[in-house]
């Protein structure tokens, strides 16, 4: 009797556990090979006949990580809905970009819950296109007003999959009052910058505030590489590493020169003390408290300058490399895309088209304080003149690189930049060390 009872309990327990396993397995990826390529899925979505014009209101989901834009975006959505009474926008901003991407990826996998979304101009943009989750926006009206540089950025394999909302330059902010007090002006070149920082230090204004504690060497390296050789050369550099073609980094003269610039920045000690540990907020504080007369920062702070560094009359200049001056570096802001499997493809595309008109872009740019990518936009905010002036001098925008193996080499490149810029390591030794790592990674056979 006791034997039978324990056996029965064991059997029942096994049934319960088996049930739990089955339930846990339900709804997950089957892992079955799906031979349809990303491209085919996109084509399929693009050629799918547009959904019939809705007879009753439809609601499309718009999700973004740009929670800071909530006020202006709500204004634009209200405007869109008043012009399109049959389309409602369910706006879902998420401040935490980690959580945002987890939710977005889960939504695209299930095919539910997202119609229009923002994405960083990073490897994710290219991955989403490869997997066929982005609708082709090439035929939309906004492409007529879309600047060529921005279009090049968001176009992959001849198709434009997104609307780049703007670009943010990363350059030097300077305190005009302190510059006048010390009797210096905007540097003409790298040597001039070193001399100016020396004079500022004599008057206890420290070096250039740089948030190395957060960005390590990445910002400065990206700026130097893009200013020196341009986005196409940077794209080639990154792609060559990813595909295993790169064997000798010195062969790319512009990249090597950029590394040399990083080394000179370290040797000249023009960065603020302990920059390796200075965080983003702390670099703003150094500038705000007038302990640093120059700060390397993104122009997104135009929107928050009254709270981040109130009362500071500031100007901007591009951080010069050893060979180039005046050309600034910019990073693309968010790209607005349409989910290719959206049930309301036409309505979603209509919304993106609406956002990208000159009139609505002016409203957005005026609030977000970015450099626009749409022609005919009148940007009217504090700093817009400075941005226009710099645009005329020249701006190189970080390209979106279509790579697949960043997990195998990106840490090593970031370490290279950090060691040269913040620890004063020898450029040639560090490059040799990186090349050794790349060789072991055998990237040619990882395609």
């Amino acid at each position, binding site marked *: *009797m006791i034997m039978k*009872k324990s056996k*029965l*309990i064991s059997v*029942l*327990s096994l049934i*319960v556990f088996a049930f*739990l396993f089955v*339930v*846990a397995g339900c709804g997950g*990826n089957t*892992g*079955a*090979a*799906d031979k349809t390529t990303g491209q085919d899925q996109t084509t399929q979505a693009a050629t799918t006949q547009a959904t019939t014009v809705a007879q009753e209101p439809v609601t499309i989901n718009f999700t973004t990580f740009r929670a800071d834009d909530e006020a202006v975006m709500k204004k634009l959505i209200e405007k869109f809905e008043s012009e399109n009474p049959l389309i409602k926008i369910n706006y879902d901003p998420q401040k935490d970009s*980690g959580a945002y*991407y987890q939710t977005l*990826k889960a939504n*695209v*996998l299930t095919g539910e819950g997202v119609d229009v979304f923002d994405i960083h101009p*990073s*490897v*994710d943009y290219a*991955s*989403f296109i490869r*997997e066929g*989750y982005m609708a082709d926006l090439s035929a939309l009206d906004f492409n007529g007003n879309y600047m060529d540089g921005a279009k090049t950025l968001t176009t992959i394999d001849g198709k434009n999959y997104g609307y780049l909302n703007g670009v943010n330059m990363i350059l030097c902010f300077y305190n005009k009052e302190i510059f006048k007090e010390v009797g210096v002006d905007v540097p003409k070149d790298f040597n001039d910058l070193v001399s100016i920082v020396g004079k500022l230090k004599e008057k206890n204004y*420290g070096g250039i505030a740089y948030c190395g*504690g*957060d*960005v*390590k060497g990445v910002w400065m390296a990206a700026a130097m590489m893009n200013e020196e050789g341009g986005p196409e050369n940077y794209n080639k550099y990154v792609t060559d590493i990813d595909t295993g073609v790169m064997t000798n980094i010195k062969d790319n003269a512009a990249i090597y020169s950029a590394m040399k610039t990083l080394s000179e920045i370290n040797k000249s000690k023009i960065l*603020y*003390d*302990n920059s*390796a*540990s*200075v*965080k*983003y907020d*702390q670099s703003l*504080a*150094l500038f705000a*408290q007038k*302990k640093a007369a120059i700060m390397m920062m993104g122009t997104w702070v135009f929107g928050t300058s009254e709270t981040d560094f109130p009362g500071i009359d500031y100007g901007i200049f591009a951080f010069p490399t050893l060979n180039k001056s005046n050309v600034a570096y910019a990073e693309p802001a968010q790209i607005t895309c349409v989910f290719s499997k959206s049930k309301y493809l036409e309505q979603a595309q209509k919304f993106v088209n609406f956002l990208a008109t000159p009139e609505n872009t002016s409203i957005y740019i005026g609030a977000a304080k970015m450099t626009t990518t749409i022609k005919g936009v009148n940007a009217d905010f504090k700093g817009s003149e400075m941005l226009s002036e710099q645009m005329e001098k020249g701006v190189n925008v970080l390209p979106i690189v279509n*790579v*697949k*193996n*960043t*997990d*195998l080499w*990106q*840490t*090593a490149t*970031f*370490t290279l930049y*950090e060691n040269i810029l913040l620890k004063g390591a020898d450029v040639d030794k560090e490059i040799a060390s990186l090349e050794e*790592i790349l060789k*072991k*990674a055998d990237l040619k056979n990882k395609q």
Partner: protein
Amino acid sequence: MRRSFLHEYRYLKFLLFIVPAFGTWFIFALWPNLEIFYLAFYKWNGISKVKTFVGFDNFNNLFLDPSLPKAILNTAFYVLFLFMIQNIIAVLLAVILKRNTGSNNFFRTLFFSPLVLSTVMVAMTWGYMYDPNLGVINNVLGSIGLKSLQVDWLGASGRAILCIVLVHIWHNMGYAITLILAGLQTIPDTLYEAADVEGSNRVNTFFNITLPLLLPTLLRVSLLTIIGGALAFDYVYTLGGSMTVSEFDTLAVYMFRVMNYGVNVGRPSTVGVLIACIIFIVFLMQFVLTKKVEDSYN
């Protein structure tokens, strides 16, 4: 007959009662953690419907990554500092605060109070304090004439780990003290009375009575400390760089950074497997040690 059936199989109803809770825990907590053992053998970008089986490729690439040895070393230092400093201080404080007096109750509350604060908030606040240029620590040192002690607290790897561990200890000391206090309560007062009668001083009493009888509790607290140190994330991530790999990243933070590259979920899964194996070995060692200690008392 019927009564006998209900009586014999009464355990079934207990089983049925725990199934919903167990099922929820299994599906939302245990299963996702077990899935890393599966994903570690695949290359998957997290959004594709296709996962590519790559065998041990992810593990090979993990061990080729020069950041891994640094992360393991940082984790080892973190655990060592945490284990030694926190446990020693917690034992001493628990012994001092054992009696139920008004002042002891006040200090117990004081030591426990940081636990109510969020980890990120604590780490951010200490981050501002540790700032080498504007932080209060360096400013105070400068104002009292100790400029030579002004350092970049989070600059060098070893010093940074120690500083972060001190934040961890400051935040969690109350928890360790509470557990050890509970262990101290199980030691009969008669033993202390007998020791008093025998003329034993406080130090002898501590080493010959308190510490040996506290050993099982200490082993359990040690295990929690080691696991807490091995999985240290919040403090390290908040105090370290937010954008890219930092010199003092522990294994958990390293796993998060690798995950952020977004191109292969298999890579961070391998780190997860590595961490799980290390903790399992530590757990086994602790289990064997605890059993031996308890058997020796029996």
